[in-house]
């Protein structure tokens, strides 16, 4: 077993044991925090596919997080008021339906944004993705039908067949299962021919062209996959809070998702899990000490970038071991 495997196993055990302990000890708040970690980690797993595998430093993943969130908000609010969505079809308060809608909507958003943004690279790519995120942010603010600036409250958490999603531990189990699925998918993707080619395109696009593969197609497909996973996380996040607001689209949200990835370790499978867990712990612990806890987060982030390039996982596990 490599050290990275041991660390990943420890993370999984931690993410499962903490809420189980909290369940036994009747600490629903801790369960909710763990659920938040799982959801934000899922958003990070999405972004990590773009940044870590594809080398696409997207500063606009809040766009997909928000689209996922609003997919949930729109469907659920129409189900709540028994009115059809855009006068066309019924709303829904079933999680699986909402997830599919969130995946489809964020995938389409990623296809459009990716097709335009991927003409650029480097700093321009960062800026153009940021610009798209901000465009959606202001669009959400100025769209009165779904709450505009105030956002949209959903009174009931959406349902999942056979479960009571209002019970914190059950909702945690759902988010955790989806996170596990996404991690499994990302792990297989990294080793697949697609992942191999994408990874090579990040390092040398010329080589990939020379073997007859279009780097742009690889990047766009990866960007769509990445946006869809982050969009699914957005739908879950909205369900966790039972509230959707334009904040989900804000550049701060993009920044936070990026912080999970960088804190945990860019390109590391479990990096976003470690990053999101540390972020939420810091927010909880430091936030209790000071209102200005972001200063300390900034210092930690600075240290990671300066001294621990591989993030938490990279520092603990050493350099990445090549597969096979």
């Amino acid at each position: 077993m490599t050290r990275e495997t041991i660390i990943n196993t420890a993370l999984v055990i931690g993410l499962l044991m903490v809420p189980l302990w909290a369940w036994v000890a009747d600490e629903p708040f801790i369960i909710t925090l763990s659920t938040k970690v799982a959801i934000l980690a899922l958003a990070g797993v999405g972004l990590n596919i773009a940044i870590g595998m594809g080398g696409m430093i997207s500063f606009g993943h809040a766009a997909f997080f928000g689209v996922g969130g609003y997919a949930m908000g729109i469907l659920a609010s129409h189900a709540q008021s028994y009115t059809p969505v855009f006068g066309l079809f019924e709303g829904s308060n079933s999680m699986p339906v909402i997830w599919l809608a969130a995946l489809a909507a964020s995938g389409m958003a990623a296809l459009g944004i990716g097709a335009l943004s991927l003409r650029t690279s480097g700093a321009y790519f960062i800026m153009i993705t940021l610009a798209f995120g901000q465009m959606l942010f202001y669009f959400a603010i100025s769209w009165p039908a779904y709450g505009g600036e105030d956002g949209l409250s959903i009174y009931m958490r959406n349902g999942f067949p056979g479960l009571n999603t209002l019970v914190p531990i059950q909702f945690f189990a759902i988010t955790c299962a989806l996170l596990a699925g996404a991690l499994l998918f990302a792990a297989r993707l990294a080793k697949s021919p697609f992942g191999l080619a994408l990874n090579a395109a990040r390092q040398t696009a010329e080589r990939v062209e020379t073997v007859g593969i279009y780097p742009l197609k690889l990047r766009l497909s990866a960007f769509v996959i990445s946006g869809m996973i982050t969009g699914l996380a957005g739908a879950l996040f909205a369900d966790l809070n039972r509230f959707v607001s334009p904040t989900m689209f804000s550049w701060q949200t993009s920044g936070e998702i990026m912080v999970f990835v960088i804190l945990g370790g860019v390109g590391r499978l479990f990096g976003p899990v470690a990053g999101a867990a540390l972020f939420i712990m810091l927010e909880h612990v430091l936030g209790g000490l000071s209102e200005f806890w972001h200063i300390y987060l900034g210092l930690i982030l600075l240290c990671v970038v300066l001294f621990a390039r591989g993030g938490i996982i990279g520092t603990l596990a050493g350099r990445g071991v090549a597969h096979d």
Partner: protein
Amino acid sequence: MTNPVLSVQKINKNFGALQACKNVSLDLRPGEIHALIGPNGAGKSTLIRQIAGSLRPDSGLIRFLGKDVTPFGTVARARMGLGRTFQISSLAMEDTVLQNAVLGAIGAAGGRLGLFKSALKDTASRNVALEALTRVGLQDHMATVTAELSHGQRRQLEVAIALTLKPKAFIMDEPMAGLGAGGSKRLTGLLDGLRTQAPILLVEHDMDAVFALANRISVLVYGEIIATGTGEEIRADPQVRSAYLGEEE
């Protein structure tokens, strides 16, 4: 006479006032090694990039397998069977040697790239990669991270990836550069046998290798081909002697 596999017809390329290619024509016939030599800055790499498709000529035609490929990009030409190696190694440095070679095999197989199955466990592409690595002598370094290879081994890997493509023509940009005497000899032997599989357009500075291998040699000076012929003819050509070979003596 058989049709050339690759033919470059009257190509011109200017960068501002600099004429990098002046009316360049050359062809590559089945079964031959055609060497392209010339002093530094003669425009060899510019010509290679136009043949490979990463640079468009200002005028002129490039025909490959009887088809005009001038408007095609690198990917389309690679898919048709143009196997290129780079002068400055262009490899996925963080990946292993085997991963680099498998990438070639995957590309050559064409079609969709799978999202779920493991690339390295796919026996078809793995075997193609292993065979190519063995031919260049890298079979003992499969698990090595490419960044840790010596310069010469990177050159060998470049050639191995081109082999995995099973191309209809090879374009090799200084494959011997930086190789030690042993490596150079080994690669010379490999290329010698390779010409029956697909003809090779070889840009090379190593004159021993060029004269040992090439069926024909073209000499490029200041963007212009001043002579094309067999090794004997080139050696005897007074223009070539003064422009190029003479200076080396």
